[in-house]
């Protein structure tokens, strides 16, 4: 395994599988202004601050003061590092007009300077930026080339991990003066291209002897925290999955999603035409995350942060509170500010810095406006996979034109939507002079989601979903729904009255019957009593008659058997 020296530059170590070849020179080339010096400088500074490897920066173009000022914007304090003997700066100034060749020479002076600087701070890293200035300063290129060959050999012998920068040559030439001839171990090409008036910087590892490396071009950015290259780790599709559910903040929407909401670290795609409430859903998800005490990041490409806060307040979503509490960050920028890749790199940086659990992008359609789908998909895929890797739940909104609602499902959004786990489709339904919003869950991976269309209501109270009414084969929303509901309510109340009346009638009938039963019972008892009395009376009479006539003769003479 080839020993490698970590650069500490976001993404570059991933692409190169651990950094630059340790103890060997690496050529970094590109056209003017594409970030060669910044990359080299960050390599040194990170080496000094993170890996304890002091470094020598030999500059042939800018002087030490200029260089120090330039990298201060990235938060690198060269003066401090120089005072701590972690970085040594040496400005090599070659003025052609002052120099006269007078015989045979070599560049031993340069070697001595470099050697002296290395020894002074015990350097492990060296940057030569850019050696090609020597070609302008020294007339005898034969000597120069021989000396450069010796220089690279010498750097290797001293075990220096070095970056040599070079200007991009014309046509197919990697560098103007063919430095790649001498630096054979690792060549990195930086490129800045402009498409649709938007410039994107890209990095490519052209060659890396003895190691596997990413062959693609990767967009990179020089941001507030230095250089960062969009990493590729995510292309593996091996991110961990979570069975945990994240409520959306809209109770009825959760209900449609098995009553629990979306999976953590899944991606939610909200599409719809203008004014269907996409941003509101995104804001609601963000608010819900903040209410759970989680951090959320809102990338806005249409409205400024202040505007979002104001507008969302109108539907009772108070984002300002969360911003103040530090749980929410809103990043607003113009889509045209950078290329798509650069936006994604910015998102990476923000996500890495803020570590949210919820990210909203509103809308991605604006980002993708100027690009072919072929361009968009790989980069978006990187973003989505990156977020999944970080276990971040993401919500993306996308604007679709009204007319496109139907074909959209099959065509234009297909590439992106296949990357999404949950797809909420918002639609405007126009009926009887009203336009109302409906929502349904087009898909939601891994759960039995509702197949029903709901009406989506935005009000002062917030977002709510209401069951729609079907009248024949028509979906009723808005006033038509309310009218229908009223009808049903009336119908229901009428029925109830009837029922009560019937009940009352039946009750009184029952009472009547019970009264009759009671009367009959009383009569029956009276009859029974009369029977008893009669029997007693008859018996008394018989006894009386018997005593008068023949006392010995038992009674019953009158009742002779027939």
């Amino acid at each position: 395994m080839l020993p490698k020296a970590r650069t500490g530059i976001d993404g570059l170590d991933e692409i190169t599988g651990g950094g630059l070849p340790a103890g060997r020179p690496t050529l970094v080339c590109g056209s003017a202004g594409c970030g060669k010096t910044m990359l080299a400088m960050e390599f040194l500074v990170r080496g000094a601050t993170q890996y304890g490897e002091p470094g020598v920066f030999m500059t042939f173009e800018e002087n030490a003061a200029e260089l120090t000022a330039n990298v201060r914007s990235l938060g690198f304090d060269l003066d401090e590092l120089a005072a701590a003997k972690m970085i040594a700066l040496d400005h090599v100034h070659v003025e052609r007009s002052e120099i006269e060749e007078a015989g045979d020479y070599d560049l031993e002076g340069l070697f001595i300077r470099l050697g002296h600087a290395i020894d002074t701070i015990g350097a492990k890293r060296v940057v030569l930026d850019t050696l090609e200035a020597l070609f302008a300063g020294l007339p005898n290129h034969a000597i120069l080339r021989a000396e450069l060959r010796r220089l690279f050999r010498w750097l290797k012998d001293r075990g220096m991990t070095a970056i040599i920068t070079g200007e991009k040559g014309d046509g197919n030439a990697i560098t103007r003066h063919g430095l790649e001839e001498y630096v054979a171990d690792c060549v990195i090409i930086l490129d800045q291209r402009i498409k649709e008036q938007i410039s994107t910087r890209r990095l490519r590892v052209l060659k890396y002897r003895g190691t596997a490396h990413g062959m693609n071009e990767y967009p990179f950015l020089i941001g507030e925290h230095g250089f960062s290259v969009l990493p590729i780790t995510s292309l593996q599709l091996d991110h961990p999955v979570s069975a945990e559910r994240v409520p959306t903040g809209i109770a009825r929407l959760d209900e449609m999603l098995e009553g629990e909401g979306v999976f953590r670290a899944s991606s939610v795609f909200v599409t719809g035409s203008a004014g269907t409430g996409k941003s509101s859903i995104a804001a609601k998800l963000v608010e819900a995350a903040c209410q759970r005490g989680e951090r959320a990041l809102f990338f806005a490409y249409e409205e400024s942060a202040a505007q979002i806060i104001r507008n969302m307040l109108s539907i009772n979503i108070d984002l300002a509170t969360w911003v103040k509490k530090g749980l929410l960050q809103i990043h607003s920028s113009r889509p045209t500010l950078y290329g798509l890749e650069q936006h994604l790199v910015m998102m990476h940086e923000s996500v890495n810095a803020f570590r949210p659990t919820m990210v909203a992008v509103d809308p991605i359609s604006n980002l993708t406006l100027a690009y072919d789908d072929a361009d968009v998909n790989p980069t978006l895929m990187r973003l989505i996979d990156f977020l999944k890797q970080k276990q971040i739940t993401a919500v993306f909104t996308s604007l679709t034109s009204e007319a496109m609602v139907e074909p959209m499902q099959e065509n234009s959004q297909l590439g992106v939507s296949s990357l999404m786990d949950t797809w909420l489709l918002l639609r405007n339904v126009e009926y009887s002079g009203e336009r109302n919003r409906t929502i349904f869950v087009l898909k939601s991976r891994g759960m039995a989601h509702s197949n029903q269309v709901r009406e989506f209501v935005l009000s002062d109270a917030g977002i709510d979903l209401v069951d729609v009414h079907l009248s024949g084969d028509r979906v009723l929303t808005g006033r038509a729904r309310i009218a229908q509901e009223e009808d049903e309510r009336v119908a229901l109340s009428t029925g109830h009255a009837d029922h009560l009346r019937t009940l009352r009638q039946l009750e009184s009938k029952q009472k009547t019957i019970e009264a009759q039963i009671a009367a009959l019972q009383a009569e029956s008892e009276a009859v029974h009593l009369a029977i008893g009395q009669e029997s007693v009376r008859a018996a008394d009479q018989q006894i009386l008659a018997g005593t008068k006539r023949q006392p010995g003769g038992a009674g019953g003479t009158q009742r002779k058997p027939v």
Partner: protein
Amino acid sequence: MNTKNVPETKAVAALVQYVLRLYITGSTPRSLRAIANIRAICQEHLKGRYDLEVLDIAQQPQLAEGEQIIAAPTLIKKAPLPIRRFIGDMSETERILIGLDLRRASGTATDSGSR
């Protein structure tokens, strides 16, 4: 190594004092050649009005950075102005003489020498 100022009487221009510094890298054959060559030139053309100092940057590496030395050997003409640098083993006497304004470049009468 210092040969001090002995004014000559021939011409006004000849009165100008030359301050020369030769930077070498150790006792390499090239260094030694350069020392011998420049001494010969000084003796022949600047006799009595030059200050030549030979410095070894292998011994004093910090000098190399201060004086912006890349190539070795390097001769710096500090005075008279303008400052001029010569790199090499000082074997090209003609070029040096022209560069030191001691000889006119190929027939043209110029005071500043070849550019």
